[in-house]
């Protein structure tokens, strides 16, 4: 191409953009690579200096993550019968014996229940509210929308103490329901605003055609609006899930024995038998997976979600 083009970026700017994106990707991925590689290192490898890029991978970290162990005296260790199973064998290699399962599985499950539960609730309530705001004459519509948005104007942690007291009175502290409601409360404003944008873009004629074809308003919503809004719903769900999944401060404050999620649990691993960084890294790696899978599954929608409204179709 020799001719100067107005719309086609020049070669130099394409290269520039490519380098920029590559640099950004490296910077973003570096911590992930670090965590994932650490999770496969032995304890000494994980803290060696300079850091080891090439090492013998081991699943010690994962075994330690899922178990509690004690370190008996070396003489006692030698008197034990041979290890029973691969987990025991790996523990023995570190000079420990397994005394029972850790609480990681339980905490992880709590995260799944609370994260996906609050995401589902945010999406259900958000979609219905956004549809109503988009289509119906709601009294004080603008004020209500502003009020909903205003819940996002301060950091949620600013209301931590009132919420803590309220939850204690209501018996919601350290319950799945309490955490689901809390994260839904924080996410609902995002869900309503994002989804309203998406639903506004769906022409009303589709529903009107369905209404005339003999469907009720709710049937029209379910069969015509929902399939059209799928993109918006998917990307909103990702945003909601990422927040609820990663939330740390409220989880520390409001959960302990029963409904504790993974984020406050993972750091507590450090204490068991010295600083067990591979186990922490293993926890973090596993913790990353659900959101990563969810996002990869919905990534097409997510991309549209980020750029939606930028270009009028």
């Amino acid at each position, binding site marked *: 191409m020799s001719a100067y083009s107005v719309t086609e970026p020049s070669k130099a700017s394409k290269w520039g953009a490519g380098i920029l994106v590559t640099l950004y990707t490296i910077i973003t991925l570096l911590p992930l690579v670090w965590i994932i590689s650490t999770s496969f290192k032995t304890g000494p490898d994980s803290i060696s200096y300079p850091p080891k890029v090439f090492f013998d991978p081991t699943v010690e970290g994962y075994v330690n993550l899922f178990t509690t162990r004690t370190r008996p005296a070396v003489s006692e260790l030698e008197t034990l019968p041979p290890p029973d199973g691969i987990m025991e064998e790996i523990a023995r290699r570190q000079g420990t014996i397994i005394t029972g399962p850790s609480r990681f599985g339980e905490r992880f499950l709590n995260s799944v229940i609370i994260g996906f539960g609050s995401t589902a609730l945010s999406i259900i309530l958000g979609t219905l509210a956004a549809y109503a705001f988009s289509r119906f004459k709601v009294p004080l519509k603008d004020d209500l929308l502003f009020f909903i948005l205003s819940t996002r104007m301060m950091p949620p942690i600013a209301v931590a103490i009132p919420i803590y007291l309220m939850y204690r009175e209501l018996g919601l502290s350290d319950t799945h329901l309490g955490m689901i409601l809390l994260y839904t409360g924080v996410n609902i404003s995002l869900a309503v605003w994002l989804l309203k944008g998406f639903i506004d873009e769906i022409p009303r004629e589709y529903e*009107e*055609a*369905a*209404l*005339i*074809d003999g469907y009720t308003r709710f049937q029209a919503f379910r069969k015509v609006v929902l399939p059209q809004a799928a993109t918006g719903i998917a990307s909103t769900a990702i945003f909601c899930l990422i927040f609820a999944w990663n939330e740390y401060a409220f989880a520390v404050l409001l959960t302990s024995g029963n409904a504790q999620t993974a984020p406050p649990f993972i750091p507590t691993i450090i204490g068991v038998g010295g600083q067990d960084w591979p186990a922490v890294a293993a926890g973090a790696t596993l913790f990353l997976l659900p959101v990563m899978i969810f996002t990869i599954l919905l990534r097409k929608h997510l991309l549209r979600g980020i750029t939606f409204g930028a270009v009028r179709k």
Partner: protein
Amino acid sequence: MAEIVIRNLRKEFGAFTAVKGSSFTIKDGEFFMLLGPSGCGKTTTLRMIAGLELPTSGEILIDGEDVSQRPASQRDIAMVFQMFALYPHMNVRKNIAYPLVSQGVPKAQVAQKVAEVAKILRIDHMLDSPVGGLSGGDRQRVALGRAIVRNPKAFMMDEPLGALDAEFREIMAEELRALHDRMHATTVYVTHDQLEAMQMGDKIVVMNHGVVEQFGTPQDIYDHPATLFVADFIGSPSMNFLRFEGTAAAGAETIALGDIPTPLPQLHEPASGALVLGVRPEHVALSDTAPLRGRIEAVEYLGTTQIVTLSTPFGTVKSRTSSALPATAGALTGLALNAPRLALFDATSGRALRTAANAGVHHG
């Protein structure tokens, strides 16, 4: 099929009144046009008949039953939208079948009906295509198919040809009219295109600012407009208006246009004050002997006819004459007005005065 009666229909959106008490009757099997400029209330009227808007007051009777406060789904009406509104996540077959599915029609019967309709509209070869890739005309056919598939009481069409390009619009207009002649379905059709309305409609309602200006056959509306607005809106070029001050008693057969005595259809009511003499361009002939004089300003050649624009003491006048007649810009000539086809309007109210020509045409 059904007769639709509209009585004192009114629609307010907050402080704005979109439709100010319309009344008219759509006879069974009629192709009925709602015509007017944008914002005149024609689409609101259609949406009220369909049940997509509820009227503030007034009655809508379909087959003698007042349905004005019923939801759209209970009115048994089909609608074709300007932007087609095909369900984008379904293919052609599913789109057409959708209204039948909602009624719980058995599958075999749905398939048969869809095939039948697709054949009528000549879209049977594309039943399994997604609607996204179709051309405008094909989309419109699918939308029509979805409307006719369940034999509703009436069809509502909201500028169904508005989104098509000019060439295709004419083909679809003919197809629509042919479809109507075959099915004899009561059809209410909204358009802002007066040519489309005249070409296709059995009856036309002309609306402006939420008011029904005139209601009648295309011929009556063209030949005997009830108001200055209708006279100006219908016809291309529109009716010429010669503005003057004058008086005439009821029964008079001439009126003084300035100092030129001008014959016109016998007046059935007295006229005085600011008046407007209306004449269609085809009823203005160029004649050297005529007392009304004008200077030719421009000549537009249109093939068999030409439009001659003249300036006269009473304003600009356009004449449609045969292209064979000589006319050169700058020339002075006389204008002969075809007396039986003249209309006289009251300039203040905009209303056409009753004459022998329009007697019996105008309603309230």
